[in-house]
Each structure stands twice: as C-alpha cells, then as structure tokens.
C-alpha cells in the first residue's frame, strides 16, 4: 500500500490557525502580565483573534475541497458553523471582560480555553472523518470541562465541572464505541464512504451497524443535551460561570448539532427510515420534558438551562423530519437561538454580583422600574425565545414547523406548537416579575460594562433583524446546506 503524502494546503486553515496561535499567545502572555497593569488587555487579545478568524472565515465562503486525505473538508456548511462559533465566541468574550474580573477567574487560562474550545468546534464541524470529528469533539469538551470549574472556591462550579467531566467521558465512550462498530461493519471511517456503503448495502444493514448508529445518536444526544441524555445539563449550566453557561448553551450546542447534522444527513441519510422514529421520540421527549421542568424553576439561570433543552427539542424536529433540502432551517434556528440565548444570559450576568449571583426570579422583581432598558432588552429576548413575532425566535420556529408540515409530520408539529405555549408561560413569568411586581429586596443597579453593552446591543439587533428581514440569512443557511443535495 502506498502511503500518500497529504496535500499541504494550509491557506484553507487560516481561521483555525489564527485561533490556535492566539490561544497560545494568550496563555503565554498571561504568565508575563500576571501582576502588571496589562492584565485587562488579556481579554482584548482573544477578541482580536476571534475577529480576525471570523474575517478569514468569510473568505472561505464557496470554497469547496477536501484536505489532508479527506480527513478535513472545507464547504459552506462547515464555514457557516465556523462563523457561528466565532460569533458566539466574540459575544462571550465581550461578556467576560467584566465578569472574569468580578468573579476572580484566572484570566489567561479562561481565555485560552475559550479559544481552544472554539477551535475544537471548528474542527468538529468541518471534519469528514469520524476520527477528526472525535478529536474536535474532545478538544471542545475538555476545554469546557475545565472552564466549568473555574469559579474558584465555588462548590457548585466544581461540582458542575466534575459532573460534566464524568458524564461527558461516558458519552464520549459511547460515541467512540459507535464509531468503532460502524467501522467494523463498513470498514471505513470516512463519512461519505459510509454513505456509499449504506446506499449500496440496502438491507444488508446489520445489528452491529444499527448498534453503532444508536450509540452515535446517544453520544450526540448527550452533547446537544437531548432528553434522556440531558441529566447533567441543569446542574452544569447552573454551576458553571454564567458566561460559560452561555457559551455551552449556544456554542457547544450549535457545533454538536452541526456535526450531528452532517453525520446523519451525509452518512446515514440513505438509511433514513431507520433513525427517523428514534429522533421523533427524542424530539418529543426533549421538548416536552424541557418545557415542563422549566415551568417549575425559580432560578432564571436554571430555567434558561431547561429552556435550552426544550430548544434542542425544536431543532430535533427538523432532524427527525430528515428533509435534506430543508436542513437550512436548522442552521437558521441555531443562529437565531444563539443570539437570543446569549442575550438572555448577558442580562443574567449583569444582574449578578460577586458572591450574590442574583439568579433567583425574585431578583428580577421590579426591574422595569429600576432599570427600564435592561428590563426591556430582557423582555425582547424572552419574547423571542417564546416565539412571538416579529422577533427572530418566531421565524426560527416558523421554518422548523414548515419543515414538519411539509413532510407530513403533523403530530410532531402539533406537539411542537403546544410546547411553545407551555414555554411561553415560563418566559412570561420572568417578564411578569420584571414588570408586574415590586422589588422585595434592593439588589442595586445592573453591573453594566462596555463589553456587555456591546454584546447585548448586537444580540438585540440580531433578534430584530433576523425576525423582520430573515431572507438574507436564510439564503446563506440555504446555500450552506447545499452540500446535502
């Protein structure tokens, strides 16, 4: 067998390289700048890195080729998710400026791990090979295991980190085992070659293969926090630093869904009938359980954690429908969802204080009187999450439901919309506290900073823009999902 020398075309990897380089530089400089007055600049550096990487990511648009012996692939689908990950990274960094300061988080490690985590996401969504995908997934996951525990001296944070690590390791094992089983049946770990196998093999699909697919779904189900693999989510989301919670709820979820989508719609699409029912059940369970449990939460951060589970359920609707031509709706939904969720978490951050996170719903009582602007933007995010037009959340749901109706999945759509009514209740509950109730205790003015203000402003703009003028971005999402045609 001839060993092929992979083509070295690093030009296509500039975004990834930029992120990696900036991560290393940040880590190194954090040692030098530990004491000096330059410490605040440690946050600016990764921000520059992320912006530069985003700029180069735009240049990848319409690039279409495989790198490194088809281990890695550049296509619009991957580029879209890379851009989403980087946008999320930028917003999270903006939110973190004040937050890491306030909570005494070790700055260098924090930013470096954020960058490494994002690098993992970028690899995850652009790999054409199960092993590369696995590497990306691990890179992302391990960074986040650590990030969860960075609130020094906070037991909940440590618990979150440990819990996420233990369960995450378990899920990783499932995923890897699934990959192994698929390799055992198909003899390949190249995603597109698996598709060829499945297409040709029709009913040769063996129990081993089925088991492998099921394990893969379990593994991705864990990363996307789908019921019944969601058990870790509320505790981890609640315990982790809030900026990291926002990062997990959006970035990790988006990247995991990106990879999930690529695997399902490329490798296993010919075997659609085998997994649609599995995902149908997963979607219904995820939406329903997420929403119903969220109803009872009195902690806004925890409520948002359950709401993010519920949103994973809506996305799973589109996956269960399995219409490849319409997979753009998932991309659009993830984009929309990221903005509104980060926005909501941003408000949670600025309401909080050192040693008193103020995440209980009663902290929001009377917010409209104390700080009308913050209350108004929070209301915008919550109404968007609830799917009230003309905000982006509505458009996202609208397209997802269109998918379901078009493919004739009426019951799934009905369960989906009824769920959104349930969800409206708990989102409105926060609005109700902000606007209808008087404050019981004085928690002071929001802890505003330039960074969080910019992040919130971007999110508000996006929530309105994506809701009222969805066309541009839906067309981008549509072009990104052309790879499945």
């Amino acid at each position, binding site marked *: 067998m001839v060993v092929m020398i992979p083509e070295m075309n690093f030009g296509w990897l500039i975004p990834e390289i930029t992120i990696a380089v900036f991560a290393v530089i940040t880590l190194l400089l954090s040692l030098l700048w530990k004491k000096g007055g330059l410490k605040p600049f440690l946050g600016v550096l990764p921000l520059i890195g992320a912006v530069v990487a985003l700029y180069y990511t735009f240049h990848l648009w319409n690039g279409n080729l495989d790198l490194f012996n088809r281990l890695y692939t550049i296509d619009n689908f991957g580029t879209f998710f890379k851009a989403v990950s980087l946008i999320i990274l930028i917003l999270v960094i903006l939110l973190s400026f004040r937050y890491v300061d306030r909570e005494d988080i070790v700055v260098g490690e924090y930013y470096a791990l954020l960058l490494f985590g994002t690098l993992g996401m970028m690899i995850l969504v652009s790999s054409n090979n199960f092993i590369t995908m696995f590497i990306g997934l691990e890179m992302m996951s391990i960074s986040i295991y650590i990030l969860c525990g960075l609130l020094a001296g906070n037991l909940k944070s440590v618990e979150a980190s440990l819990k996420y690590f233990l369960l995450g390791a378990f899920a990783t094992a499932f995923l890897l085992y699934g990959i192994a089983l698929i390799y055992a049946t198909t003899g390949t770990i190249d995603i597109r070659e698996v598709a060829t196998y499945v297409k040709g093999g029709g009913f040769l699909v063996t129990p081993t293969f089925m088991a492998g697919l099921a394990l893969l779904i379990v593994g991705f189900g864990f990363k996307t926090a789908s019921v019944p693999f969601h058990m870790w989510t509320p505790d981890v989301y609640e315990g982790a630093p809030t900026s990291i919670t926002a990062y997990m709820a959006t970035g990790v979820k988006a990247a995991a869904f990106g990879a999930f989508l690529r695997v399902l719609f490329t490798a296993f699409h010919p075997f659609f009938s085998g997994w649609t029912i599995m995902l149908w059940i997963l979607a219904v369970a995820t939406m329903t359980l997420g929403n119903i449990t969220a109803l009872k939460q009195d902690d806004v951060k925890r409520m948002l954690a359950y709401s993010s589970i519920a949103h994973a359920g809506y996305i799973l609707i589109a996956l269960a429908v399995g219409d490849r031509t319409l997979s753009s709706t998932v991309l659009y939904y993830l984009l929309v969802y990221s903005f509104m969720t980060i926005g909501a978490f941003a408000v949670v951050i600025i309401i909080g204080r050192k040693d008193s996170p103020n995440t209980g719903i009663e902290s929001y009582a009377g917010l409209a009187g104390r700080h009308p602007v913050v209350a108004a933007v929070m209301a915008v995010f919550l109404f968007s999450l609830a799917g009230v037009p*003309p905000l982006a959340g509505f458009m996202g749901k609208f397209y997802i439901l269109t998918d379901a109706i078009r493919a004739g999945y009426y019951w799934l759509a009905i369960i989906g919309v009824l769920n959104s009514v349930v969800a409206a209740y708990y989102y409105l509950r926060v609005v109700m506290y902000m606007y209808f109730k008087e404050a019981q205790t004085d928690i002071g003015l929001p802890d505003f900073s330039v960074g969080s203000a910019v992040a919130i402003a971007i999110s508000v703009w996006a929530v309105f823009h994506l809701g009222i003028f969805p066309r541009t971005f839906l067309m981008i999402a549509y072009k990104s999902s052309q790879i499945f045609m």
Partner: protein
Amino acid sequence: MNMTYPLLSVIIFLPLAGAVVLMFLPRSNPSLAKKWALVWTIIEFIVSLPLFFNFNEQTAQMQFVENVPWFPELGISYNIGVDGLSMLLVLLTTFLTVICVLASWESIKDKVKEYYISFLVLETAMIGALCALDLVLFYIFWELMLVPMYLLIGVWGGPRRIYAAIKFFLFTMVGSVLMLLAIMVLYFHYGAESGSYTFNLFDLYNANIPIVKQYWLFAAFALSFAIKVPMFPVHTWLPDAHTEAPTAGSVILAGVLLKMGTYGFVRFAIPLFPQAALRAAPIILTLAVIGIIYGAIMCIMQSDLKRLIAYSSVSHLGYIMLGLFSFNMQGLEGGIYQMLNHGISTGGLFLVVGMIYERRHTRMIADFGGLSTVMPKLAVFFLIITLSSIALPGTNGFVGEFLILLGAFRNNVSFGVLATTGVVLGAVYMLWMFQRVMYGEITKDENRALKDINKREATILVLIVFFVLLMGLYSQIFFKKMDTSAADYLQKFQTKVEMLQTAGPEAR
C-alpha cells in the same frame, strides 16, 4: 408596486414611529409623554380619514393595496389593502385609540411613558392585522397584539391582573399556534395543487381542498378566532381580562381586539374554507345562541359593573357571530355593523364605569345608587350609551341588531327566536343595572360628594354619543361603504359552495 403615497403603510406604522420617539422622551416628564401620545394619535386619526373619504364604494376590490415581495422564495409578501368589510374597522381603531389616550389622562400615574408606548405598538398591530392580506403577515400582527395587551393588563391592571394577563396570553396563544400550523398546511396544499407556493390570501381563496381536510383547517382557524371573539365555551379569559384591565385597556379590548376574532372569521375562516364553514354553521350558530343567552344570564347575576359589561360583550359578540354565519346580506352587514357598534357602545360603557371608578374606587353595584342626583351630566351620557347597548331604535345598536335578527330569521327561525330572547334579557340586565346605580336614593354617604364629569370626560362622552346617534340615524353613509363588498363576498361564497357541491363526491 405603485409609487404613490402609501397611505395604509403610513397608517400602520405611524403609531410605531410615535412609540419609538416616545422611548427617547425623558422619563421625568410624564405629562410630555401623554401630550405626545395624544397629539400623535390625533394625527394618526386624521391621517386615516382619507381611507373613508377616498374610498371607492363602487368596487369590491381591495383598495389602497400595497404589495411588496418580502420573502419571494417562500411566497411571503408585504401585501396590505382594505375593502368595505375592513375599512371601517380601521377607522374605529384609530378613533378609539384617541379616546383611550384621553381616558387614561388622569388614571395612569405610574410608568406613564411605557403605558403609551404599549398603546401605540398595540395600535400598529391592530391596524396591521386588519389590513394584512398575506397570511404570514397577518399572523405576525395577530401575535404582536398579544404583547402590548399583556403588558397593559399586567402592569396597569387591577388586583388580580397577573392572573388575568397570563390567562389572556396563554388562551390566545393556544388558538393562534394551531392556526399557524393550519396556515402551513394550507400553504403546502395550495402549492402542491397549483405549483405556486404563496401565502397570498387571494390566491389561497382559490384552493380546492377536500372536505375532510377543510374541516380540520377550519377547526384550527375557528378555534383561534373563537377564543378571540370569545365564543362560549372558550370565553372564560374575557371576564377576567376585562375586569382587571385599566379602563382604556378594556375599551380597546372590547372595541377592537375582540373584533379581530369576528373579522378573522369574515376574512379568513369562512372564505378560505367555505364548505366546511357552511357545514359547521349549525354548531357555530348553536354556540353563538348559547353565548347570547348565557352571557345575558351571567350579566343579571353580576355584582361588579365591569364584569357585567364583560359578560354583555360575550352576549353581543354572540349576535355578531349569529349574523356572520347566517350567510345572507342582512346577517353579514348587520354583523359587521354590530362590530362597529359594539366598539362604540361597550367602549362607552367601560369609559363611564372607569369614570365612576376613578371617583369611588369601587365597581360594586351595591356601593352605588342615586348617582344621577350628584352626577346629572354623566347620567345623561350613561343613559344614552346604555340604551344604545340594548339597541333602542334611533341608536346604533338597533340597526345592527335588527339586521342580524332579520338575517337569522331568514336563515333559521328557531335560532332567530332564541336570539330574540337575548334582546329581552339584554334590556333586563342593562336597565336594572342602570337603575341600581343611577336612580333611587343615595344610600352611601361617600356618594354624596361625587363630582360630575369634567371637560375632558365630557369631550370623550360627547364623541361617543355623537357616533351612537350618527350611526343610529344616518347608518346609510356607513352601509354605502360596505354594500358592494358584502354583496360580492356573499356571491363568491355561494359560487364556491355550489361549485364544490356539484363537483361530485370524489372532489370532496
């Protein structure tokens, strides 16, 4: 797309622009906010007047149409227009908003700026929903109405406002999300049938839908609209919402928001699914009659003035539904006319109750009695509005109710007879209420020192009474505007029903 003055867009978005300006006005100066809101709503009303005067009554076509592609790939467009069935409702909205701002002048002291922002956003949403001719656009405005109304009830409402606000929101949302799914099903059905995927209402009117599918779709639309109307038995949110809402909130809720439900039947549910509508008519008519009688009986038993008027709305909206589902000219025109009347009369009643409430801070009938001796001016206005609500000849209510009953009798005598008992009951509860509140001896000492209405309040009531009498005595100027549209509407309905009936069983 014509380049002329986009009248409807201006009418729709002018309030929104006013709300945006309002956001930047200083919070420390609440009187500036309310003056701004008043001036702006008056401008809005004036701007909307050409709709009436430039309206061409010879044609049943949509007028003032604007059609701009919004998302052409999906067939969503910004398509708006009015015809004789909706034009007057738009004017009712712009008129009542001015009244509402005036009525809130002194009663709203807290978060004044936010209050008027909510009102202006609500106005945009309401007018948008009335003008939208694209189902997605309609749905967006339709849902957008919920948010400001939710805030109006929840922030500025009475003691049980939180419960009422959430109940209002969730009830309405359950209906509307199912309607959203029905819209999508319809979209794909028509797309598969004709090859062009569009949400344009007039294209979708041409869809040939098998009858079973029509039933389901009609059910989804009807549920959504019936909750809004509200029809028995999904009316339970209304008494709560009305009782807890601030006066102006009640006025706009009764005056315009409820009409969205009946308008939805006229514009969407019936013409989109005519055959299903025809076959479901007995059910709807039965529920309407139950609503008329049940609402009236509930009114007799109420001890709270606002709750009484809220239940009278259930009864009156039952008449409107009765008229609309009679499927004849009298019923349809009467129904639409009654939509306007109810906005004026019931709005007026809520205003009067609000004025009394501001003085006495109670709405219990038992706390009053003999008010006419201390408030003679109010008593006169109150009496006229009460009489218009029970449809005394000469007032607006008579014209609408008479036509509806005429239509109902022509359609089915038994429904007509049953509905007429509601007229009697209506007189009973309204007059009895009026007697207990205004006549007799003053039994409570607190009532002796009540001041009569001031100039601002008099202005409001004069405007209301003016329309009560105008619409009662010169109803022709309004009917002239809707005649052509209504005739055309019914004719299309008949054609379509017959076409489907003669098409044979396989087409159904």
